[in-house]
């Protein structure tokens, strides 16, 4: 499974939304209805799934699903 597919799956299950409704441009807060604790939880899940560290200041800048995927891919390649 690609990073994108895994992220879509995690976002769908964490936020309780349909995978079909998720796009690269979806905003966690504005489109997918995440509240602040959802965001914290999502970061924890992604850190565990991809075995990476997402520092708080980096997490603050991630607003869309696409940005999250880009961050993860860069972190995995560094």
């Amino acid at each position, binding site marked *: 499974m690609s990073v994108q597919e895994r992220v879509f799956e995690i976002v769908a299950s964490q936020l309780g939304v349909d995978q079909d409704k998720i796009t690269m441009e979806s905003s966690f807060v504005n489109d997918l209805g995440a509240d602040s*604790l959802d965001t914290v*939880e999502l970061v924890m*899940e992604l850190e565990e799934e991809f075995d990476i560290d997402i520092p708080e200041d980096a997490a603050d800048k991630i607003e869309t699903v696409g940005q999250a995927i880009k961050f993860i891919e860069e972190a995995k390649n560094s």
Partner: protein
Amino acid sequence: MSDNSHAALPVDLNGLTAIVTGASQGIGKSIATAMASRGAKVAVVARNAEKLADTVAIIEAAGGVAQAYSCDVTKRESVEAVVDAVMEKWEKLDVLVNNAGVTRDNLLPVMTDDEWDNVIETNLRGMFLFTRAASKQMMRARFGRIINISSVSGLMGNPGQTNYSASKAGMIGFTRSLSRELGKRKVTVNAICPGFIESDMTKALGPAVMDEVKKRIPAQRMGKPEEIADGVLFLASPQAAYITGQVLTIDGGMTG
């Protein structure tokens, strides 16, 4: 039924796993044995694991399941290692009872930095570290019970206990705020405030002081550790799912 008998509270904790800190003696030991007797698997935690042998022996003799962990609750690595070990062993963590606590009484003008820091570190930071580590597991699981053992000293003043009172009142504020963070995830967070309970801590006060204390308690007696454990059993039970952010005071009416 007399006040001194103790009938078992009918609570079923089968299938739950729990961590109880400060479980080597007194109230913590009573909480751990009571939870195990209702079917919970209990990780008992204390600074010195050898002192937990008696708690584990009581639980196992009654057919329960317990595992002892030594831990310095003021150290992040030490706390996270316990939570990780429990997750490894039992694959989930349903109940956290933050009971570890110390007193270092002194009058404020002569209280040392150490006396202040030691009490705040163990009672407040210890609770923070354990709860942070446990809350991540509970949020994921969409279930959890966090029960903080505060004290009537967190509700009313006690001379010589500014440090202890501050820590115990702090636990109550923490409880209320966290309940608002985790409510949606079916994790409840509550505090229990024991009054004067028969323990080594209160035995040290001596008979004269105790006679004075009893005059201030409407029930006219000290509480038993089992009576605090019953409060924990209830808050940990499925029946308490709608109770969160609350303070249950068990003190024979002293603060009523």
